[in-house]
């Protein structure tokens, strides 16, 4: 699971800016055959707003711990090691 879809790279707009979030969602769904209904797009905006605060916490925790740059493979290795270590706690 190394690759992240290219269209999700970059800074997510402010979670209080509905119009910008809608544009972000449309960009993400851009390659979809037949597009998406506006209702579907609005639902995805709501999902981003719902998840946003907890995810900002993850970003902040990563910054303070210096782990924000870990890629998927490095994260997996670190996690697998933690699983083994925690089995002995």
């Amino acid at each position, binding site marked *: *699971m190394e690759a*992240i*879809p290219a269209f999700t790279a970059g800074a997510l707009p402010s979670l209080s800016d509905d119009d910008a979030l809608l544009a972000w969602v449309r960009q*993400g769904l851009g390659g*979809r055959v037949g597009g998406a209904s506006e209702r579907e797009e609005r639902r995805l905006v709501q999902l981003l707003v719902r998840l946003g605060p907890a995810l900002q*916490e993850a970003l902040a925790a990563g910054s303070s711990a210096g782990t924000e740059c*870990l890629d998927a493979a490095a*994260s997996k290795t*670190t996690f697998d090691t*933690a699983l083994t270590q925690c089995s002995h706690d």
Partner: protein
Amino acid sequence: MTELPPTLVQMQRLIAQGELSPAEALQVQRERVAALDARFHCVVSVPQPTPSDECPTGPLAGIGLAHKDIFDTEGHRPGIGHDAGAQTPGTRNARVLERLRQSGAAHLARLVMAEYACGATGANVRQRPCINPLHPQAVVGGSSSGSAVAVASGLAYGSLGTDTAGSVRIPAATCGVLGLKTTHGLVDLDGVAPLAPALDSVGLLARTAADAGQLLSAVAGRPLQGSPDPARHRVRPSSASLRIKAVIPNALDDQVAQALHGFMATWPRAAVVCDMPEQARLAQWAEVLLHAEASQVHRGALLSREVSPMVEAVALPGLVIAAEWVLAVRAQRAAQLRAFVAAHLRQYDLLVLPALAHAVPDWSVVTPGAPGFDAQRLVGLYRYMGFVNYLGLPSVVFPVAVDRRGLPIAVQVLARPFHDAVLLAWAAAVEDRLCGPAGFPSFSKPHV
């Protein structure tokens, strides 16, 4: 239909005593598959018997198992709930199925599942609707729906499923059997169709803790802590010495809360609290990984709109979730695991939680668009599940009470990583107290 002993271990005993040969035992089990499938609709297809079925050897010789249709089998690719699969020359058994075969077990049937392992109810418009053997209107649970039905109905002594956000534990809870989500990485996923690889684990469903222990010993890819099989690994812990903590949230419905408090009262040394503040946040981080990885795994089908609404609900958000969020929640996993273990599983060996937030609902209550649909009841099926996958911990679900309709109310129990067998040891102790020799299914009262 020929009667069989209710548990795998009892069948093993009959075979060991020479009352049945393994081949005779398998013959009887195979004969039951069609009849039980006609009642409960849980079978996708039946694999051809292999030469090793003629004269099986190993601890599981003569034992018939049936598995979620998500595992590669010899010469056949799985349908993963999307279709019926297909003969595919060159396909090998998934490594976990190969381990079971080497232990002597036979593969009786490939089982129904939610499409692409997405969906807590087990609904799948592409397959016949599975029927919960306990009550025809009760939800079956998913995504390993056929696995729970096969075990609860007696079609198979055990079943493998997969669990990415509760897909083994939810149907185990709704069908009144034991469901074990193994520690992430304990069981090899080679040859198992992925949903979200960071969260995926093989799980198993069985009628008793001892039966589950037999299966776990066969499929585990590394030594277990506190194994119930002393010939294989370490000593079995005494359940009396286990230190237990329970979290019984205030948000549960009355029946479930009352049942859990009543159950914990029978373990007077256990600590009982009502709050686990990090659970909601961890659940959201798990959700992000699920959406992101599922959208990549099923990207082609998603973009061409070839999937059902349930798969879209799981995978579509992954197309719009920011990469930095995904990286952040991945990078935090190790630290969150260490913090969780330190907070809940250092001073205690077991952490008891609810399995479902509500009593087992009917299909109509958890099917969007149906009269009587209640979104909260749907969320209540998986609210306490996903965060466990994010942490990679082992978790077992089994019934400890019944609701007003006689349907099971289950608990979920967590332990430290690779302490899967400790969970089964305690499940066995609970089973001794609450159930007869037929194990957990005897606890509920079938209405079918």
